């Protein structure tokens, strides 16, 4: 699955959890999105796991604050279309 395709899958999840007006790009990270707080981060992880059928490790879910890295990670996990 292409990076663009992964991003398109992620966008509705981010909008649901963080901000309905968020435009998701690989450059987005938690420090630039004020609404992306620790509570929302946890919800985000849970929603990504359930909706995209992946499981993240402890380190992965702790360090994921950047969308580009998330896309890479999901690609590595062999996310299916």
């Amino acid at each position: 699955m292409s990076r663009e395709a992964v991003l398109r899958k992620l966008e509705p999840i981010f909008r649901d959890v963080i901000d309905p007006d968020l435009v998701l790009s690989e450059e987005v990270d938690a420090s630039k999105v004020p609404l992306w707080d620790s509570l929302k981060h946890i919800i985000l992880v849970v929603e990504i796991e359930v909706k995209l059928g992946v499981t993240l490790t402890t380190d992965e879910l702790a360090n994921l604050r950047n969308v580009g890295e998330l896309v890479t990670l999901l690609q590595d996990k062999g996310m299916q279309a």
Partner: protein
Amino acid sequence: MSADSSELSSLLARYRAAQTLQQLAACSRDHETAGAPVEPDWPKIRLALTGNYSIQFLARGFPVAMAARGFVAELYESPYNQWRAELLQANSPLFGFAPTHVILALSSIELAYGSLRSPQAIVEAVSAAVNAALKSSNAHLLVTLPEPLADEISDNSAAYAWRRAVNDGLRAALAAPRVTLFDLEPLLRNVGAQVWFDERFYETAKLPFHPDRTPALLGALADALAGVIAPRCKLVVVDLDDTLWGGRAGDDGFDGIDLDPAGKGRHFLRLQAFLQGLRNKGVLLAIASKNDPATVQEVFAKRPEMMLRPEDFAAMEIHWEPKSSSLAHILDRLKLSTAGVVFLDDNPVERAEVRGRFPDITVPELPEDPAQRVAMLMRSGLFDHRLATAESGARNRMYAQNEARAAAQNVAGDYQEFLRGLAMVMEGSPLEAARERVGELIQKTNQFNLTTRRYNWTELSGVLRHGFGRCYRLADRFGDNGIISVVAVTRDSETDARIDLWLMSCRVLGRKVEEAILADIAARARALGARRLIGEYIPTAKNALVADLYPRLGFEEISPRGGSVLYALPLNDATTSESVNFIAMKERAAPAKAQAG
């Protein structure tokens, strides 16, 4: 801004359906932006949440969870793992919030691997914090007992032995009237350990369970809290045939009904045991059955398997009239409104008939299969009933005595004769003499409640600073009615004393008790130098009963203030009351003081 009621009910429906943290968070957010819904009768609580894990996930959800249970909750959330500092220090931010209720949410993980570790150290630390909190505040504490650890996979495990030791120690150390314990184990077992635990979230977010378990835990804690404040169920009216036993006594005979503990009859016994448990916590039971009274009597007399006995029921309606008439008779007899009444019947037609006449009575859709009924009722959250003050247990007995009083009223003929024959003795005392019961009455009384002010102790102390509070216990020849009325009087000016709060149990209506209480208040206000007693009435949906109380007691209406109707009674002469002919008034003896040497 406040949410209108249709918005509110759709929000609460979404909350009830929420299964994930995301769905719960969305409900909390909408609840916050819509403004707190204000229903006039909803009790207000100030809830402080503290603990040793990430409680912000629960904290955000509490206002909407309590709204779903008919309460307005203001919330204070303690910083992470500050429970000891918050509870040990009387001037902590937590007590600065003036909570009416405190939840101490303790997870095993931090206790077992943090600084405390040993069961003894944990029990000492928790009881020190709880005892300090009881001294610093009048709040009620709900303490969660440490939950099973993920390592507890055998009763032979160290984790199991550790938790048993901690919980046994806490149960012994925390037995106090303003403390309620909440054991997560049944919830965790019911949800399932496999989906409860997820170590990743403890390491990254200090959450000892999977984030999506938050709605289930929040719901269980909110049920428990609602059960502490005001139990949602006060009376269960139950059918007999195919509900309390299998089969129909009239058709099958007393010896043909199924109460076989080894067979299907056990499921009926399960319901009886469940109802007996409620009764022991002060919930009233009553029977509404279409039967011949003699048949039912025979079952009670000749089937020793019956767990419930006739004396367990505060009222019985056994005849062929519609069930709704039976309900009406029961409510009338027990002097109860439809609030907090639950009707259990296996027959959908009877359920519909009762619902049609009494939409406010809760009528659960009892499952067809008797085996599923108790679990369904437990899950409804209606019966989470946590506070059993000393008086709640005796309440059923008092109602049984009321039935005897009603019988006496019928034969007495002359009402005055009846009142005299009751040999009533009323004992007045300061509010501190019965804090638990006074608090309970302030939160729960709806009908005979002149101002419906749901004060907590801090607020009440403020009101009483320039006045006095009184509570009254009424006994008669049939027994002790317990504390039946609460009054708070405050000084508005040099000349005026105002009755800021007056509420009374409806069980003692029509017995000149109000007159006797007024005479007592008037004498005390006069002794403080007041020349006028001001009565205040704030109308609500439920207190029409007392709309004319003050005029009836000889007060004159004066100009209204805000939503209140005000009345005045001059205190020039000693106010004499007819009540003195029927009610002997006495003051509660002060506790013995140490003799000066």
